[in-house]
């Protein structure tokens, strides 16, 4: 008997390839700078949410302090650039390392807490960092400028210094970063670490009873997530060329990541990306249509979208999409793939 999903299986690959090509050739199809800007924004949030998802989706612990890591990345790479002239390409990695250290150091005690307590503690740590930066004008002679924020000096077109006059290079960079974080997530999911994390997420005490060193795996997830989040923060700094504690380390930003991740579907590779693709444009569109007219109406709409998404898509947007894909590429034969795996195909003989 031939593979029952033969032709339909191919259809799925075609669809994925089309989407992939579309994004690859995006800037050539979409010439409008504004739409390109919107896409960069969407991809940025997709990236950040995916990085957040590595710890919050897979460990079962909700982090609401990730903006602090984003801010650390942005500040470190920018300070190195302003004070030492170090190219942000390297500064970005230093920022990532700094955030990893901070993330692990904070994560170690935090992971002893569960559920809402963990979330509240991450908020507290992020706020402490934000308030400290806001109130510090200089440290060890380095100007931090506190609440006024840092401006990345305008250098025009200088690829070596991670600055471009056109949006197109930024677009490709963020797409590449997104693909990278998705690949990392996918690899992690399939690896032993992913397997252990699943066990820990389901029942931490039980997993430990079986001999799994939960601390090690939780902290590894935290380290990866922190590093990647910080890279995104540096990207933000280079793209908008301005960072300040309120926006880049604030609670608002952390909540945005969490919202997109949960609405899209945590603990999956595609979920956060879908969440960003739903919520970011929703906010953007409602604001451009309504933002100037009735004060606050666009945020009411955004809140409504959020509430509806949470009420009717409890496992995230990924759930109905998975079902749709399954239905299109196969007649639900065999056992449906378990949530949390990368959509492995189940074929019955």
């Amino acid at each position: 008997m031939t593979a029952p999903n033969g032709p339909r299986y191919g259809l799925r690959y075609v669809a994925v390839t089309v989407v992939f090509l579309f994004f690859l050739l995006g800037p050539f199809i979409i010439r409008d700078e504004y739409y390109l800007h919107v896409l960069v924004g969407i991809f940025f949030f997709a990236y950040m949410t995916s990085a957040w998802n590595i710890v919050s989706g897979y460990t079962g612990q909700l982090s609401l302090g990730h903006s602090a890591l984003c801010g650390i990345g942005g500040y470190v790479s920018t300070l190195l650039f302003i004070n030492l002239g170090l190219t942000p390409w390297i500064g970005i990695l230093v920022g990532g390392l700094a955030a990893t250290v901070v993330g692990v150091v904070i994560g170690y005690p935090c992971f002893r807490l569960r559920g809402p307590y963990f979330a509240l503690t991450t908020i507290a740590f992020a706020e402490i960092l934000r308030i400290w930066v806001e109130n510090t004008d200089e440290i060890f002679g380095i100007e931090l400028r506190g609440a006024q924020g840092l401006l990345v000096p305008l250098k025009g077109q200088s690829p070596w210094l991670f600055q471009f006059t056109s949006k197109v290079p930024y677009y490709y960079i963020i797409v590449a970063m997104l693909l990278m974080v998705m690949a990392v997530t996918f690899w992690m999911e399939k690896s032993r670490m992913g397997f252990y994390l699943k066990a820990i997420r389901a029942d931490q005490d039980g997993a430990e009873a079986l001999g799994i060193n939960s601390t090690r795996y939780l902290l590894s997830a935290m380290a990866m997530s922190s590093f990647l989040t910080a890279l995104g923060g540096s990207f933000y700094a280079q793209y908008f060329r301005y960072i300040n504690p309120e926006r880049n380390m604030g609670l608002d930003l952390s909540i945005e990541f969490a919202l997109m991740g949960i609405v899209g579907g945590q603990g999956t590779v595609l979920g956060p990306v879908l969440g960003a693709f739903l919520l970011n444009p929703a906010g953007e569109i409602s604001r451009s249509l309504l933002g100037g007219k009735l004060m606050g109406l666009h945020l009411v709409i955004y809140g409504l979208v959020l509430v509806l998404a949470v009420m009717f898509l409890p496992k995230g947007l990924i759930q109905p999409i998975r079902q749709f894909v399954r239905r299109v590429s196969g007649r639900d034969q065999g056992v449906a793939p378990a949530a949390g795996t990368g959509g492995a195909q189940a074929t019955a003989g």
Partner: protein
Amino acid sequence: MKRIPFILGLCVIVLELSGSPVLAGEKVAEVNIGVVLSLSGVAADQGLQTKTGATIAAEEINAKGGIPVLGGAKLRLLFSDSQSKPDVGASETERLIQRENVAIMMGAYQSATTTVTTEVAERYKTPWLVTGSVANIITERGFKYTFRPNNKATYDAREQFDAIKGLTQEFGKGPKTLGILVEGSDWGKSHAGIVRILAKQMGYEVVFDEAYSPGTADFSAQILKMRTRKPEALITAMYTPDHIVFNKQYQETKLELPYGLHSVGGGSEVPEFYKAVPPESVRFMFVQEDFQIDITKVAAWTQPVEQKFREMLGYDLSAYGAQGYSAVWTIYDVLQRAGSLDKEKIREAFATTNITSGPALIMGWQVIHFDKDGQNVDAHGCISQNLNGKRTTLFPLANRPKGVLPVWPIPAWKDR
């Protein structure tokens, strides 16, 4: 069913045509002006007032027949919400420039937002007229397309000191010690920084110097410290909510500030602030703001403007409303001289601006012109004192109404 593609196609064509950019010499029906303001979030208050002032000005201009040199083209203000976030402001700027073909951008009140959005505008070679933002850096970057008619932060602080020195000269006595109490984010802390430098230069001793977290419900800790250290005058930078709480407590605790409470605006520029606090708590308070608060009493032509403002918002014309109004009239002047929608010509017209009369001077300035960095170096705010329930302009002397006598030093609480 087959009609639909045809109709759609027609719509697309129509939209395409209507969206096409207009160049010099063509008859235009409308000039698009992009306005980025905080219309939600914590600064929504000020954003709404600026929007109202701008709208009133645009209505006046359009009623008189639009921009004559452009064939009577009407001004169309496109408002958008920055949500008090720099990156959102940047997105909105992109959208307005790319999709809505604006000739000029204006806004955005919050310095952090304006810093970022003016850069976007600079990249697209679109002139940006700043409203309300005072951060020095905005006109210190060598930008060619940013124009700021209002004060830089440094001017604000300098004017406060000029007033104190001026009053000291007038009355023969003045403070030796100062206190600084500011809100703990961008605006407050940068103001404190400038005040510190000026205080040192002018020989005042700063005995109290603090920032507080925005949203503070209680100033008793700070007031207590001031009781001990006894600053003779207090300089504050507070937004409306904190200003309300502070002034109430200032009165309740009967804190003595012999040479006055000097507010550099923020909450004290907002009309509802005065409705929310007992009159005694703001008596004799000095306010530095961009706007000449009693201009409606000295310049009769401003009265209809205030009337309209009151109709729309329910309270008197504020500094932010006047900023919006002034900005749009400045744009009128610029477009008249540019004679086209070509952004380079508009930029040239901005750079050569020299307004010495007319509605754009509703702020109380004597002139609007821009130096090579886009700053109006002759911008100034006004310092007013709250006398008999009315805020009366004291400085600059050119703006002080005749027969006004300041109260200096201010009476102790027990003597009132």
